[in-house]
């Protein structure tokens, strides 16, 4: 089994596998964000990423937009939460630098589930009458083909969302490449739906997570994992539930600095200096 385990890379070499133009699905700030990889993507000036929020985006997206790495955002929201609006996102929309595919949370979950199931679309209730349908020409209203005898029942169908890359951070993996995510099942959905999955973890543990009945229930099997890297503190300053809390001062400092182009540029220089080159 070990021979088929995904490779254990450095953070930088893992980041190098994420190419310009890739469609990358990222978790929300409350799940596991691979901030160490985000730093490497910014350092490498990876271009034209299509970021998908599962289902919303925060600091990761704002930073990548500020660093010029993003061509398109597909998300139900982009926000720094209690730290306010996402300033680089807002600025980039104003300049027209990025394309925006506004969505609603369950539509993104449904699109990822369609990819997970290998079906081309998924139906979803709601949405009809929302201007989201005006700005999302890829979403379509059909009449429910199973509606009772001739009754009209309009319903929206959404295309599958199949990202090239799922990228996230988790507490632990084993040497077989199994990754423990606990109740953060959106990470499992991301891995199932995506062509490749890159994960950073706090630590590699001994044994096999799938052989422990309690841990297995919260584990993404190695067969979905393309490559791993150890990044201790890899989701700082956003934090990782049950491991470390958000660094609110650092997050506030970012939110403040990113309000201007210059402020962001200074923040980025300083940030990349602090993140060691791990090649």
């Amino acid at each position, binding site marked *: 089994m070990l021979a088929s385990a995904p490779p254990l890379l450095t953070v930088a070499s893992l980041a190098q596998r994420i190419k310009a133009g890739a469609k990358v699905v990222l978790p*929300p700030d*409350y*799940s596991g964000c691979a901030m160490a990889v985000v730093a490497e993507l910014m350092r490498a000036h990876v271009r034209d990423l299509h970021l998908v929020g*599962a*289902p*919303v985006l925060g600091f990761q997206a704002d930073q990548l937009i500020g660093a010029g790495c993003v061509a398109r955002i597909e*998300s*139900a*929201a*982009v*926000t720094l*939460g*209690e730290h306010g*609006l*996402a300033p680089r*996102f*807002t600025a980039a*929309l*104003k300049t*027209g630098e990025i*394309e*925006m595919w*506004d*969505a*609603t*949370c*369950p*539509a993104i*979950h*449904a699109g990822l*589930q369609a990819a997970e199931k290998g079906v081309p679309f998924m139906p*979803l*209730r*709601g*949405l*009809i*009458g*929302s*201007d*989201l349908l*005006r*700005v999302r020409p890829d979403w379509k209203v059909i009449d429910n083909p199973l509606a009772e005898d001739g*009754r*009209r*029942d*309009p*319903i929206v169908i959404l295309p599958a969302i199949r990202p090239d890359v799922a990228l996230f951070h988790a507490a632990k993996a084993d040497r077989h490449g199994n990754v423990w995510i606990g*109740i*953060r*099942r*959106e*990470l*499992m*959905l991301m891995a199932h739906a995506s062509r490749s999955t890159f994960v950073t973890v706090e630590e590699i543990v001994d044994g096999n997570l799938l052989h422990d009945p309690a841990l297995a229930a919260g584990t993404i099997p190695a067969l979905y994992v393309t490559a791993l890297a150890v990044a201790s503190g890899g989701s700082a300053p956003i934090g990782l*539930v049950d491991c470390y809390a958000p660094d609110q001062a650092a997050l506030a400092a970012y939110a403040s600095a990113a309000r201007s182009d210059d402020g962001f540029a200074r923040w980025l220089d300083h940030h990349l200096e602090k993140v060691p080159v791990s090649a």
Partner: protein
Amino acid sequence: MPTSLAPAEIMIAAIAPMLAGLDHVAVGAQSPIPGSAALLAQAKSGGRMRVSVLGSRDENPFTDGGRELFDCAGQGRIDAFFLSGGQIDGAANINLVGTGDIGAYPKSDQRFPGSFGSAYLYFVVPRVILFREEHTPRTLVEKVDFVSAPGTSAPEIYRPGGPHALVTSRCVFAFDRGAARFHLQSLHPGVTAAAVRAATGFAYDTPADVPTTPLPDAETLTLLRTDIARLVAATYPGFAARTWGL
């Protein structure tokens, strides 16, 4: 009657009775006022009411990932939810995307974070309570610039849910789904109907006699400021600090 109620406390006290008798109330992330109201209503129900607070360590019961809240609502298991809007209009349409001509989308004049789950939950949760502290012609508009989620739908549209009321820092509006229109239900202490009219960008009905928003009795206020405040602080520490100095 207790004195020096915080504006947030008046809103909390106004929302809580709207939840009485419900089985399951869910609250989105970063919604401390609805969250406090739901926890207060739960305490008043003797614990019979289930309250699910997204982003809470102890009050979040979900184990199937980010989709579960929406699936749960789609199953009909959530009786009430809360939505806000960068703009809210007189037909209870809400805008969480941005202001300005939709033809210029996505170059909004002012960009909001995005629609979150509103375009779905507004349709499937029976009792959606709108809340917005800022009650000005800027937030309560005649017609939203972008409909994240519509207040009402044509009869052929599947819609077991929809808006119930709008609670602001000035008053409570009740919503009539048939008429697709708000009416002024109660005024917070010290607020006049004329002041609400001046601060509101949309048309609504005003009954001849508008009562004052019922305020919490001493027992309720004590409960809110002790047990509930402590629960709230676990999920919304900043809000609890600002409101109750916790």
